[in-house]
């Protein structure tokens, strides 16, 4: 799987949030998008997920235009937004049934991705009573229902404790190893270490960055 973003622009009225974004990535990699708050990281991911339209630009997966094939895009790309894409009043199982058939759910819970995420531990707990980590694992479980080769994550470990961050990072590492392509926005050092390529969005422009584990250097570049 090869992902290509070409000359992507996004304007909100007169303000240009994203300027000529170009990015290429391949399977088995993790791409980290960095930047200060409000720089356009979430906007970039939501454009790639098809939630909103770009002003100009192209997006390809294995040469197939994702902007023109929404059905194919929904199969190839999983998306985990920053909030909680879950129905609060219902249990984890009910939420999963929005994305999985009953047969698929049983299979994934016994030997699939949902088992890997440990969702069977809190299957009958209502979302409103779950911890932040549980919610995030469940959100990822919902996003990967179609086994997408590309997973977009908007700050996956924001507001999680260390144990939860570790669990999430472990799963994402597994996903990467199994040939998945991860594109995530983050400020977290644990996730930064998971990434193979780093980019910073500054003044709407995507710039390549070489992360060396030194957060002071990173801060100076944001």
């Amino acid at each position, binding site marked *: 799987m090869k992902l290509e973003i070409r000359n992507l622009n996004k304007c909100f009225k007169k303000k240009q949030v994203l300027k000529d974004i170009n990015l290429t990535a391949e399977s088995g990699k993790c791409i980290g998008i960095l930047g200060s708050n409000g720089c356009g990281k979430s906007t970039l991911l939501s454009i790639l997920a098809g939630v909103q339209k770009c002003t100009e630009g192209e997006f390809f997966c294995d040469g197939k235009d994702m902007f023109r094939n929404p059905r194919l895009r929904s199969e190839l790309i999983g998306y985990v937004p920053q909030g*909680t894409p879950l129905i609060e*009043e*219902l249990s984890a199982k009910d939420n999963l049934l*929005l994305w999985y058939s009953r047969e698929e759910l049983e299979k994934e819970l016994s030997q699939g991705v949902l088992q890997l995420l440990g969702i069977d531990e809190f299957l009958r707990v209502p979302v409103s009573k779950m911890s932040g980590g549980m919610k995030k694992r469940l959100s990822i479980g*919902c996003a990967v229902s179609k086994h997408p080769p590309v997973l977009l994550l908007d700050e996956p470990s924001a507001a999680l404790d260390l144990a939860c961050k570790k669990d999430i990072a472990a799963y994402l590492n597994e996903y990467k190893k199994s040939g998945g392509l991860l594109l995530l926005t983050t400020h977290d050092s644990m996730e930064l270490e998971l990434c193979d390529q780093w980019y910073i969005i500054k003044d709407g422009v995507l710039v390549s960055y070489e992360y060396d584990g030194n957060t002071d250097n990173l801060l100076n570049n944001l």
Partner: protein
Amino acid sequence: MSRYLLLQLKRIFRILPLLLCVALVLTISLTCVFSNVIEFNNSGTENARFRFGLCGEIEGTYLDIGLTAIKQIDDLKDTLVLEKMTEEEAAKAVKANEISAYVVIPENFAHEAYYGNILPIKYVTDNDSAGITPFLKDELTEIISNAIAYGLQSVYGTYHATSDYMDYDSSTELMNDMSIEYVEYIIGRADVYSVTELGISDNLDFAGYFFCGISVLLLMLISLPFTSVCIRWDDSLLRVLSSQGLSPLRQTLCEYCSLSAGMIIIYTPLCLCIASSALVTDIGIDTLITTDSPLTAFMQSLPVILMISALTLFICEVSRELISGVLAHFFLTISLCYVSGCLYPIFVFPESVQKLAALLPTGIARSHIGNCITQDETLGTALGLLIYCGVFFALAWGARVYRLRKSRR
């Protein structure tokens, strides 16, 4: 889409017991209000008497025949009360609003009437007396004056006509008989007319009208607890659904269907209970024409539920917080119901407000329920409600699209 619809239905069903309890409490409360208002209205009508004072030469011969005639005229509702008193007492009573007016029979009234002369009867009132309009006061005064004067004139006229041909006793006896006949058949007009009330609005009597208004208010209030389920402060799920191909239109449609289903489930037992009780008991609405079955009544009132569901969805869609959403829904409900004449008879409002009420969704809903009660044509109002339903749904959809666009920034 079907999975999202099923989950939305599941959300609604989870809080259904709570919603049913709220609906039950609201229904019982509003039923109490309804019965109290109807009772008060009925007792108020019974007690609405016009009291008149009678002064001057009241004790004259045969003058009571005129008074009997007046009672004959008023024997349907007993709304006229004539009280004999002195002029001084009567003047005080008028000022104290204890009587509407008083009539003074001048001195020698009976004596002059004996010779065919009717002396003018003095009528005294004040401009603000006892809550009757000047028009009505004039009418009543004329009736009282005519009844007294012509009653007396007829008695003496009979006496003159017979006295030349009979002895005194026979003539007097005949005069008495003829006077009584005269009062009963000529002046007594109780059976000459009958009053048919077309109702205060939409051919409904007060109870029927109030029932329609309070039904709309009840349904609007029943939809209030649904806001706790429908208001969202996190758009993440909507964004993911959108990215997975479930468009804002289909999202809104699923939520509308589940909300309508919840409303119908709660409304069904209430409607069937009310319709069944209307079939077997007198619920105090004179203009109520019972339908063949409770099911017919239920089916006819469905457009109201669909419109209210769409309105609730729209309110929830534009509200970001639970408290503001519930408050917005509540105040909109009260305002719409007030202006539409659901809380007060519509005729108490200025004409411009009446015209506006006829166009408002709650006004159309009230008329629709009224038409269902009286078995009038319901197609027009049902169509109006469905148009509003479509408008509110479109607004909710538009708000969802705007919300998704805005939240993406």
